[in-house]
């Protein structure tokens, strides 16, 4: 049978006679059918709204800041980072995303600040407002600041999967580990769940 493809087809072994022809005919039918079915299926898929596929994202309203995002992502550091919706932020100088609730004084020194990698920078805007800027390359996605901001502040800081880093595993390590079931597939066209208003 391979003869047609081979350069030495002419002296390929004789095709066995008899009963095989019907089998070959059937098989050819099966193959043609499969190709037509597969083609049809793929055309339907390509036209479906979900064709472009999905990516993973965290629902900030469900997130409990357990910290597993920092350790369970296949990437190190994690593809999860803290995102800040400034439009929701109160711009407090005493930011509970930045500072611990129990402090000795109000300096920014490490014993007072939450972020383990010092990734949050407090930038003066105008009296008495300060912008909390997050240095994404330092952020490890531990969610400690998010916890502070959610408990004591406006909840303007929250965790999101950053798609410039995420490799979009078919089985997402952190989605599997997430105790709140907060991570789900979303359309690749709307890859973020950004907070826009007060909860």
């Amino acid at each position, binding site marked *: 049978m391979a003869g047609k493809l081979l350069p030495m087809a002419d002296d390929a072994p004789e095709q066995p006679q008899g009963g095989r022809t019907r089998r070959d005919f059937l098989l050819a039918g099966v193959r043609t059918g499969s190709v037509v079915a*597969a083609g049809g299926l793929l055309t339907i898929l390509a036209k479906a709204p979900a064709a472009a*596929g999905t990516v993973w994202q965290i629902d900030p309203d469900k997130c409990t800041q357990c910290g597993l995002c920092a350790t369970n992502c296949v990437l190190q550091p994690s593809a999860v980072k803290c995102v800040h919706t400034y439009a929701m*932020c109160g711009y*407090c100088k005493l930011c509970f995303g930045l500072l611990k609730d129990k402090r000795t004084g109000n300096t920014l020194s490490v014993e007072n600040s939450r972020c383990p990698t010092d990734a949050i920078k407090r930038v003066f805007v105008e009296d008495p407002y300060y912008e909390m800027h997050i240095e994404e390359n330092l952020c490890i996605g531990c969610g400690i600041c998010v916890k502070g901001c959610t408990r004591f502040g406006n909840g303007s800081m929250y965790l999101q999967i950053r798609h410039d880093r995420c490799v979009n595993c078919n089985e997402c390590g952190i989605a599997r580990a997430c105790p709140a079931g907060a991570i789900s597939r979303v359309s690749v066209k709307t890859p973020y769940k950004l907070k826009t208003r007060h909860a």
Partner: protein
Amino acid sequence: MPLPTPGPWDRDRRRTLALAALAAVAGAAPAAHAQEQKKQPPPEFSEGYTPPMPSQPQPRMPWLTTLDVALLAAALGLAAWIGLHRRSRREMRLLGLFSVLYFGFIRQGCLCPVGSIQNVALAALGSGYALPFAAGALFLLPLLAALFFGRVFCGAVCPLGAVQDLALLWPRRVPAWLDNALGVLPYAVLGIGVLYAAAGTAFVVCQFDPFVGFFRFSGGWLAISLGAGLLMLGTVVGRPYCRWLCPYSVLLRWTAALTRWGVRITPKDCIQCHRCADACPFGAISPATLEAPAEPRAVARRRLGRVLAVAPLIVVAGALLGRLGAPAVARYDRVVSLAERVYQEETGRVKGQTNASEAFRKQATPTGELYRQALVKRRWYGGATTLFGAWCGIVVAGKLIFLTLRRRRPDYEADQAACLSCARCYTSCPIEQERLTGLRSPLRDAPEQP
């Protein structure tokens, strides 16, 4: 409702004033006040400051995924051309290297046809998931290729296969009995993969993908150790993952059995030199069968009768065991394990909370609702795991029947279902050498001499 709510506007402004004052003295505010202060409305800036927008780095463009599909199709075509027309082991290896580099290291493994089984299962049997085009195409293309050209996907396109193929340095034969027995495993892996995927519980095939960790330079320790172990084993045993674990191999095997043009070892007549059978590290080349069977036909027939009689029992036993094991299988599901945990907490059997039960309580879903959801899942698992057990039974029984039946083969033949299209056998075929060099093989004159 005739209740005039104060406009949110007024309220916010009022709070803004009060809290702006608070913020001004915030330096001295004791921590205890923190909780009362809670919402701090966004200030109105006087100096034209506009709050920055959070950046949204976009995921990989969808058309690049389509390009991957096109590349896969091209690679499949190329592998078929190399394997069936060019008949070149060297080119096959080069293509394999490319696949490892591109589909493996550059695309980092996801999505791949092996994993796509689960996407298909979830979309077809589960709910709430629509199959993306890429997943569907990745699932179908290698199967279509197998239907026409044999398992060329395994030969050089699958990065998981190619990386093992490159690692196979000192091939040793695995005893046929062991190969036969381990050949049952992929069916079981396929079953469990589909089971958990259709339930929406997990994609276990991806979770325990042994090589993707290498492609990504990171990963879970279990998967990495499994991968390292398989690669070490793979230096002497040909492609252990492909042959004894890969769930996709089951589908490929059955489609390739119907193939139109598969790998044919010798370009024309076979001179019965038996070299190719030894060259194949995967035991996919079967010699011509013996003229006379080793045992009387009646004995073989009685044995077949026994096996056929036992087969239904095996299937029923599998189904029964599946049903009995269902609760433990279902426990891998998040909702089921959570419901169990919450129930134990409610009844005081365990103390404290897990991350998950704590998160559940924060979401304020009624426990009854959780129990009901878990119950639905468990019922589904009850049926599905029974089917899974029956499936395992069918595979074991089928394999036993297969090993009891006698087949006739006049020649050395590549078993299209098991052949991985690696092109190794060509290089040892003397007739192939004749084709390449135009010289008459010395083996023609003394074919049976070892």
